[in-house]
């Protein structure tokens, strides 16, 4: 069972505040790029290079942008933002176990999919894969995702956060209505 929105909202807001108070606003989607870069650099060590003065750069323009910020983080995965995402997974795992797990059926196929499309896990996994591709392509184009742009951004009164949220909901609401005609 989920927390009542009043309790959950205060708790979630407090976590976003805690992050800004102690370190910096929460963001997640950049770490997909960092993991890609770690893998790509392992396959092709020429991808990320360090110049004589210690600065990092890359043959890929995206990794090299902002003075090689992404190239540097991919070369040093033990950095705050990357560990943060690993820790999120640990936290979610412990929380799920503490409340008794999500159940075998739900782990295999979310009920909202079952209600609309029956027992078709392969189709569901294909949609999740394509959805993931579009979500991360969009997040990187936008420069952030639901946590970085929408939550952290709007909380800081960033103009970009409002633009992002407008785009995200403008597309998300009709797509959700079209794809999931039956509620669950």
């Amino acid at each position, binding site marked *: 069972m989920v927390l009542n929105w009043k309790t959950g909202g205060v708790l979630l807001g407090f976590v976003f505040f805690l992050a800004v108070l102690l370190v910096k606003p929460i963001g997640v989607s950049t770490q997909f790029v960092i993991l890609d870069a770690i893998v790509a650099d392992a396959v092709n060590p020429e991808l990320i290079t360090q110049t004589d003065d210690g600065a990092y750069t890359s043959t890929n323009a995206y990794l090299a942008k902002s003075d090689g910020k992404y190239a540097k983080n991919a070369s040093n995965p033990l950095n705050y933002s990357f560990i943060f995402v690993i820790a999120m997974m640990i936290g979610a795992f412990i929380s799920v176990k503490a409340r008794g*797990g*999500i159940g075998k059926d739900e782990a295999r196929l979310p009920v909202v999919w079952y209600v609309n499309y029956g027992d078709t896990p392969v189709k569901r996994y294909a949609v999740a894969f394509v*959805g993931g591709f579009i979500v*991360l392509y969009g997040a990187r184009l936008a*420069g952030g995702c639901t946590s970085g742009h929408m939550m952290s951004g709007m*909380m800081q009164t960033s103009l970009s956060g409002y633009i992002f949220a407008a785009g995200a909901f403008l597309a*998300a609401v009709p797509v959700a209505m079209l794809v999931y005609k039956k509620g669950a």
Partner: protein
Amino acid sequence: MQIILALVIGALFGATLDRVGATNPNWIIRMLSLRNLHLMKTIILAIGVGSILMFGGQMLGLVDVLHMSVKSAYIGVFIGGLLLGGGWAASGYCPGTGVCAAASGRKDALFFIAGGLLGAAAYMVTYDGWKASGLLDGIAGGKVTLGTVPGSKFEGMMALPGDVLGLVLGLVFVIVAFVLPDSLVGDGAEIAVE
């Protein structure tokens, strides 16, 4: 120290996302199809609470203004937002909730992450084209806040005091969370919450 903070805040964030239902695609679809706005109320309240605590803390001198990190505004933010929104609604996951859902044992979330890694890689290799298109060039000042926050390295769109505006907007978010109905579409069937 930074690593310990990453572990503590990250774990707290992951656990909270699980407890509010954000890592559950059923709740995401309920929200985005406007059938049940419980999660929407949670998110809007969270933005309000975060804003009030941050700007209130700044005004009291308890929160370092320099910890703020404002992202640039450009046309690509809107296009990227549209794409993310479409994929979010189809899959029921966004980047953060997707990784947490995978950690909770959801198989489809693993496919979401695999697709996500490929999508991020696709952006890496197509970045040059976007850059050349001018759609990544800042608009309305780029990295700006709505008001001008005292001591901030980011400029304000308006000369209004940004901390006061942040506090007021935070309160508006809290009020919106309270007045938002439980459902806008369908019969709004009750779903048990704690």
